């Protein structure tokens, strides 16, 4: 395991902090839902955090991530302030795009987050296009594209991965296989044995890995990134995981799911798992654990306060910004 061996204790602690912060964000958000304030319907990533943290840890600022609906951790690792995210979830003017779009698919060029889309899977060709830009610009940056097992059934998954394979683009496809597309279990939308094998049909490697082990994810993604930066092309990583919450907060966690299966996954909790490892190898102690937990609590509390206290965007801003300012020498006429 070449890459994780190079991780220093502070790296491990930082990964742990990011895991805790992400978990804290999601738990607090889900708890707030229904009690006013939260406007954007939460699609909790609890149980899947290791994928986003492991995949994004150590990325360059210029490296781009295209998050899925369930990759809160990607925003956090890339440095998108939790206060900005929370404000956006509250629909406030201090959120992304001053409230014009949801945070689910927010863009943050400053931190290397690509603008996504509400159409699951349609973001894949767009992420591939960002990787194409890097290749054409001769930059050795990479794109990490997250999506779920459901998204993998979209035509855009196929066209996007084939396109990336043909041009050997610097992109890592991180498939979060949590066994469900909304309320449809995997066996009802997929007859294959695994998704990793699909990579062969595009001419690049695919691998199924444990998505609940942050170090396993980190190792696999770093290997894929090295390939990508070296111009050797894409990699598909199928990360096996499970979500604790329902598809969204409109339903209870057990809705249309087996409580036993749910419980079994709690056993493999990515945060606790990593925590136990760190305690065991002495990188972390109870005190450190507590302070990291407390810091996470404080940050999210502050973010919620920020969101609550922020103003809504004035209605007047509605009609601004459908078009970037254009040189009058190039464009005239009336938009409407």
């Amino acid at each position, binding site marked *: 395991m070449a890459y994780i061996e190079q991780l220093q204790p502070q790296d491990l602690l930082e990964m742990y902090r990011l895991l805790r912060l992400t978990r804290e964000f999601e738990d607090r958000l889900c708890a707030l839902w229904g009690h006013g304030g939260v406007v954007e319907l939460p699609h909790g990533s609890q149980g899947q955090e290791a994928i986003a943290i492991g995949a994004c840890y150590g990325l360059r600022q210029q490296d781009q991530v295209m998050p899925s609906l369930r990759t809160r951790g990607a925003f956090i690792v890339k440095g998108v302030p939790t206060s900005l995210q929370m404000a956006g979830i509250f629909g406030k003017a201090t959120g992304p795009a001053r409230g014009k*779009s949801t945070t689910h698919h927010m863009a943050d060029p400053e931190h290397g987050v690509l603008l996504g889309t509400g159409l699951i899977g349609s973001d894949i060709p767009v992420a591939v296009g960002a990787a194409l830009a890097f290749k054409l610009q001769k930059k050795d940056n990479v794109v990490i594209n997250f999506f779920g097992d459901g998204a993998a059934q979209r035509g855009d998954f196929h066209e996007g991965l084939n396109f990336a394979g043909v041009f050997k683009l610097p992109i890592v496809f991180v498939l979060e296989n949590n066994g469900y*597309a909304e309320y449809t279990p995997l066996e009802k939308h997929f007859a294959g044995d695994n998704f990793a094998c699909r990579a062969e049909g595009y001419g690049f490697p695919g691998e199924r890995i444990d998505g609940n082990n942050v170090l396993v994810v980190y190792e696999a993604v770093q290997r894929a990134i090295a390939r990508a930066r070296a111009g050797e092309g894409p990699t598909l990583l199928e990360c096996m995981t499970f979500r604790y919450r329902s598809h969204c907060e409109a339903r209870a966690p057990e809705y249309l799911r087996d409580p036993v299966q749910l419980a079994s996954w709690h056993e493999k909790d990515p945060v606790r798992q990593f925590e136990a490892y760190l305690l065991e190898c002495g990188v972390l102690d109870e005190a450190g654990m507590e302070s990291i937990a407390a810091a996470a609590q404080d940050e999210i509390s502050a973010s919620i306060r920020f969101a609550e206290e922020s103003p809504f965007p004035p209605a007047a801003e509605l009609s601004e910004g459908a078009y970037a300012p254009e040189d009058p020498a190039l464009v005239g006429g009336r938009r409407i």
Partner: protein
Amino acid sequence: MREIMYRDAIREAMVEEMRRDPSVFLMGEDVAEHGGNFLVTTGMYEEFGEERVFDTPLSESALVGAGVGAAMMGMRPIVEVMFADFVTIAMDAIANHAAKVYYMSGGEVTAPMVIRLAAYGAGRRSGAHHSQSVESLLTNVPGLTIVAPSTAYDAKGLLKAAIRTPNPVVFLEHKMLYAKKGEVPEGEYLVRIGVADVKREGTNLTLVSYGRMVDVCLVAARTLEKEGVSAEVIDLRSLQPLDEETILASVRKTGHLVIVHEAPVRGGFGGEVAAVVAEKALGYLDAPIKRVGAPWVPVPFSPTLEDAYVPQEADVIRAAMAVMSG
């Protein structure tokens, strides 16, 4: 009479038609056990079983495309597209295949199917990709039939008619109407596709609308009454075919026309209505035709912005007063 919700009326239409005709079936994403995110198909899986009510992979193009193929082979599929915004990934199956089957086959093959573009429109803080009014992406495609009911009664009657026609029908369901209640007879009835409904009689202003905006027009009409304006409110119910006669008869009577839809104005279906009147009843117009619609931007997420995005009673009244004084 019994009052039920728009969503229940849609379900009732599907259930009645599936009991009547074994070739009718329903497929879509999470329409079976889950019963749909807007509770439209709740209980159908339990009654008809997984052979006639089933979930599909997250593949809208295959969902609608397979519907076309099944329809060509004698079935009468109802395919639910979870959010109308997703029509962009099913456009080809709708516009290039379903719509052209009968003509391209010289009348030898039909594609009797209903494509339910569910939960269209703004109002639920769903963001730019779950809130659009997409009708104009389809209104210039020959071969399609397009309906957009505004009441539970029409939803049931139009959907039953749609399921029985031999041609592909696009059925538009506004998400903010799902919970709206209305009188709906228990039993069998049909609402003719292509026939508008005069929701309110009036003498000096015609308000033409469809979908969610019909109610906005009705509220505006009551206010206008106080201003001394007697507004007739027409619910098109169907965009293709279009009930030109009802529109023209009203305008010939009132001499004033305001067209209201939730979609943005430019390139919206309101232009078609205005053009029909400007060709066939121009001489009866006492004032310019005005259109009311959303501003020229994607649907915003934040409540303050989204609420301002959706045309309101005040917008209709402003346009109406301008027309009456113009």
